[in-house]
């Protein structure tokens, strides 16, 4: 599954970041393989989404979230 399929409050672990035009930046901002992320919320219009990663809040569009393959995990950050 991909990050875009996670609902607010759910967490996941990154398996792979597929190529997209922000891939380099996404990796540098800490979304490397194995990183645990939690979806905080969606913007009022449903997109972009806000995630908690490495202790800070990052917002990204679902288009990019769809390129981030994750596995859902049950733990809370």
């Amino acid at each position, binding site marked *: 599954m991909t990050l875009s399929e996670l609902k607010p409050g759910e967490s996941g672990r990154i398996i792979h970041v*597929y190529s997209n035009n922000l891939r380099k930046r996404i990796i540098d901002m800490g979304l490397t393989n194995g990183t645990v992320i939690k979806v905080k919320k969606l*913007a*009022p*219009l449903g997109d972009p989404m*806000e995630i908690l990663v490495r202790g800070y809040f990052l917002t990204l569009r679902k288009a990019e979230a769809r390129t981030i393959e994750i596995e859902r995990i049950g733990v809370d950050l």
Partner: protein
Amino acid sequence: MGHRIALVGNPNSGKTTLFNGLTGSNQSVGNWPGVTIEKKSGKLKHQNFEAEIVDLPGVYSLSTISLEEEVTTKYILSKSMDLIVNIVDASNLERNLFLTHQLLDSSIPMIIALNCMDIAKAKFQDLNIPKLESLLGVPVVPITASKKHGLVDLIRVIEIANYEPRIPQKRYSEAIEKTILQFQSIVNDRFLATRFFEDGINVDKYSEHDELTKLTLQNALELAKKDYTLDFDMVLPDERYNLILTICNAVLTRNSVEIESSTDKIDKLLTHRILGLPLFLGIMFTVFYLSFGPIGTFITDGFVWLIEGFFSIIIGGIESVGMAPWVSSLVINGIFGGLAAVLGFLPQLTILFLFLSILEDSGYMARAAFIMDRVLRRFGLSGKSFIPMLIGFGCSVPAMAATRTLDKSEDRKITTMIIPFISCGAKAPIYGIIAGAIFASHSYLVVFSMYIIGIMVAIMSAILFKKTILKGASANYLMELPEYRMPTAKNTFLHTWERVKGFLIKAGTILLGAFIVIWFLSYFGFVDGTFRLLSYEEIEYSFLGLIGKALLPIFSPIGFSDWQATVAILTGFVAKESVVGTLGILYGVAGDVLESGTLLYPALQAAFTPLQAYSFMIFALLTTPCIAAIAAMKKELGSWKWLIFALVYELVVAYVAALLVYQLGSLGIGTLLTVLVFIVVIIIVFSTIRRIIKSKGSTCGSCTGCGIEGSCDIKSKRK
């Protein structure tokens, strides 16, 4: 000769605050990523120690994608500094240390200023600084830049720092060190080798290698790729983050129970799924209502009363002294007439700037971009474009400078070119006075329609550019939401003052010069073959009158019935504020404007029919911006070709729109109806463009316009 010290850190980590603290200067500081868009330098003086401090744009990593970040990377790779002070936000240690980790690969001496210690202390149970220092191998100084804590300690450490090149530690796994060594043997520099590792051959644009070296490097890169199972561009970042996590776990003692931060609580409301959007619109409406509504008007009236009182005393003095007629004419009609109109507008601008500063400093601007991204994406822009566009309501010049925070050059160009359509603060008095004179009770609606039309034309232009001359995928969006901060009075004041100061300087230089030129052109001319100072009745014979008359045939199809209106529009090229001032001079009430702004009303009512007035305002709204904005535009667009294109485009749009209004209106369907028809026409044009785009834009089925090729593949694979 002092040392040169560069401040390097993540966006929004407090670099500019620290810069101001160290150098005593007052650069503007905001709470959204990307406030520093150019490198700035200042002097640090402490007792006998002197050094040059360079503030660089914030970067998350040395692999840059936006123009302003490139400034930083280029500067660091050039090694033209003696020391790096790396600012690290202690409350966001893990991600901030990524850049630190990259910088540690260089041989440039480095000190870490561990900022935001106040927030970190509340967030974590403990932060072991001596341990962090020993793990990183460079001095770490805890500071809280916003409260000026620890600055003296930092200066002391800078003073006694070791300015000899550092020897970068070998910190990575055996395989990675082997690859780095391979690259290093080609380029002779460990730092550059690590940059090649992370960014590939692209980095070479910063250095000067011959073709052979580049080829050797390319081959080495291809060869090295085979050694890793992980994607090559993720190898080093992955290793860095693993090492950083070890460091963080060693130095941080986290709270056993996660406390809900105040940012969390505020965001529960401000970015709420349902309430977020209405609250956002409410906040924006409140800001503009307070600036341009009754309260702003009330303050303006009081201020204007003061200025007028002041000017009339001086004018009385001038008249009693009995100077040469041309001197008193220059002072009364030229300088005071123009300045009164411009300065009367200062209170409203100050209020607007004050609110924009508070929104910026608190961190809400980033939320605004988050909320608006979905809307702006429809037009091919990113939520980040919202910030420059919003600033554009105040003034186009800082708005254009702010486009540099956008990642892609197409987005920067488009945003820069549409900002002039956003009705800037300087255009407000044009609508205010003309609508006040002509539309009286409906003036609010008329002024509001100007803003709406401006926004719609801006949006349509963005779509048009995106689909024709600046093709490209939808703009990128990836943004950090900073923690909310209480804006400090000092910061807000500084921020507002900086912008007001810019306006005042403009009024005192460009505008004053413009008023004198306009005065000369309008009060001198040839009458019966003699060149002399003209009286008001003879203004028709002035140079300005001649120019206006010559251009009248061009402007008459859009409803300009007299040359005064034409001339006023022309002077708007110098500064939009001077349109009203010029109208004052040309309708001969400059002296009287000093007593009451409304005295211009009868002259305007005689000169404009409602339809002509509306057409005039439309043209003033959409035409080319003032000289200062054109200069800013040239800087951001980068070439004369683009600048001329943008200016011609704006002229054509303004002319066509005004023509449409006037000719439609002349069919005799009433003003209010014309406005309606005009808006309907805009909507039709708008939806037609959208339909054309939709029929063409079949990128990948269900996710049209997502702009990310390949993302659909993954989705369909999963199905």
